């Protein structure tokens, strides 16, 4: 199955099932590589339709305290970009259907080298990329090479992306559109249901791509509200917080961490099933 069709298949299947998707974000290697792999492997059965895997970075400028801390835990446990790609590859060996999107910042990729990164990402069975600090103005850097390598380039749009700018932002977008529903960093505010509905309608006027909505979605009810107006809901900080609540005083995973987080994912997934 090619990279592109995996994501398209998933959206097709969701449409057939008549429900919206649950996209889960966790940071690769948080709190340690083994726990992280066990968790990611468990996500599809718990109800995650797409897996967003954070590539840890020392300076996550668009993230709030929860994901900052998660990124630092992963780095402290020795996670590198190579390690993140290894994790994706290990997951892909056992699951050929659930799309994996890598999400993060550009510098670790730039440091590894764009060609080497893309080669490894494609080989690992990654489906798409969300790079926070690469707006359309910098499409020559990674967006165009990534599309040429067969990966989806998932674009972030925000409340500040107005109608004049939207066509430029959507020009090289593929896979789906990620709507950042608030002005702000992850894990802080939440948008109103009406505001999200209006924004999604606006995006649908400009594009046929499915729309996933993220930032500030914390509960199964939030998920239900979101998929009532969008194709999918993304949950990140709330999952990462659930992980943090299952660490001991030294920052190590408690034995029940994976099961607790997966239970939370199951609860969120019920939000997509009405």
């Amino acid at each position, binding site marked *: 199955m090619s990279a592109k069709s995996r994501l398209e298949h998933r959206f097709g299947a969701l449409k057939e099932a008549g429900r919206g998707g649950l996209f889960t974000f966790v940071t690769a290697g948080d709190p340690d590589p083994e726990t992280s792999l066990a968790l990611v492997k468990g996500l599809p059965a718990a109800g995650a339709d797409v897996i967003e895997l954070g590539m840890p*970075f020392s*300076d996550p400028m668009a993230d709030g305290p929860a994901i900052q801390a998660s990124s630092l835990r992963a780095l402290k446990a020795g996670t590198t970009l190579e390690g993140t790609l290894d994790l994706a590859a290990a997951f892909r060996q056992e699951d050929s259907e659930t799309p994996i999107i890598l999400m993060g910042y*550009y*510098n670790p990729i730039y*440091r590894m080298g764009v060609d080497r990164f893309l080669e490894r990402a494609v080989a690992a069975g990654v489906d798409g990329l969300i790079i926070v*600090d690469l*707006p359309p103005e910098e499409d020559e850097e990674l967006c165009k090479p990534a599309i040429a390598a067969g990966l989806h380039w998932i674009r972030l749009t925000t409340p*500040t992306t107005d109608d004049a*700018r939207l066509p430029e932002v959507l020009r090289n977008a593929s896979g789906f559109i990620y709507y950042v529903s608030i002005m702000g960093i992850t894990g802080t505010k939440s948008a109103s249901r009406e505001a999200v509905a209006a924004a999604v309608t606006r995006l649908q006027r400009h594009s046929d791509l499915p729309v996933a909505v993220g930032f500030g979605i914390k509960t199964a009810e939030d998920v239900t509200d979101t998929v009532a107006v969008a194709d999918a809901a993304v949950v990140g900080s709330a999952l990462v917080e659930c992980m943090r609540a299952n660490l001991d005083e030294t920052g190590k995973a408690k034995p029940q961490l994976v099961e607790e987080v997966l239970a939370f994912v199951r609860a969120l997934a019920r939000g997509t099933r009405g």
Partner: protein
Amino acid sequence: MSVRNTYRSGPDERGHFGIFGGRFVAETLMPLILAVEEAYGAAKHDSSFAEEMRWLQAHYVGRPSPIYFAERLTEHFGGAKLYFKRDELNHTGSHKINNCLGQILLAKRMGKTRIIAETGAGQHGVAVATVCARFNLPCVVYMGETDVARQAPNVFRMKLLGAEVVPVTGGTGTLKDAMNEALRDWVANVESTFYIIGTVAGPHPYPAMVRDFQSVIGAEVREQMQAQEGRLPDSLVACIGGGSNAIGLFHPFLDDESVRIIGVEAAGRGIDSGEHAASLTGGEPGVLHGNRTYLLQDGDGQIKDAYSISAGLDYPGIGPEHSWLKEIGRVEYVSVTDREALEAFQLCTAKEGIIPALEPAHALAHVANLAPGLPKDHLMVMNLCGRGDKDVFSVAEHLGVSL
């Protein structure tokens, strides 16, 4: 018509100096950054903007700052004839005010109602708090907690001026962490807020805009040296944190091939120790805080914390134009250690009766290495870009004196 080669035409319309610079920011900020670029472009060609700047520079900041023949240090070094550009005499005690005035006038033009800033030594924070008081805008300054501790007088100054100072605990609690936090604030408050970046870093147009506001330094030096010596200087020396005082001095001279130009980074405990802030000497190209430039980073692209005795220099990046000037070889970049800077700090105080900030003390430490070997008719200008009042307590501590 032949177009003369120039080092002064950058950046291109996308904010690139060679491969450096650019606009690596989250989508939320992009429309605002484009708006800042447009507003700055319009202001640059508006004579009323220039006039207001000139008036404030003359009557509020005290420009032009003097050019001063450092006679006793010249004698002491026994070589080049040393001049100081006295930007430490500016209102608020450093070059930082040059940039803050420009940016706050722009913020006003854009109708912004709230100002944020990052600060390291606190000099930029004080300058921002000052212009915010003067122009009646609320002000939030992010400052690493390590810096809050070692720059207590400036923290109090900012508070007196009405700013809210927010200590930042992430990373090592220094300048890069303060900048991350300011960017996070900005993403959440784009509509109301203008971010006054304190150096020639950040996404385009900041590196070019801050350079333009600081170039008053070099432009004055050209005129002043012509008046005093009847010719251009032979060399320029300035310290580099993000690189704003340095580019301000250098930029007007970049096309004068006879002028040797030297930037001095902070080598902290020595480049080999790994504890330093010398991005050009000890870093690699990467992308952080909106631009591509030389960065202190590990093999995985994770940013390393910078270290220097000087809070104003310990930033793991550098303005993208400096990265370009290094690569094309127009400017030489060197580094000096904490210890050398401390010695220069004391030397300047003893010989000239001027207590310099620890930042320009780095520049002077390199002058001390260089000047003795140069002929007596060599004219050297060093940017004395800040005064040392803020550093007196931490210098005492380093010298083992308890106050």
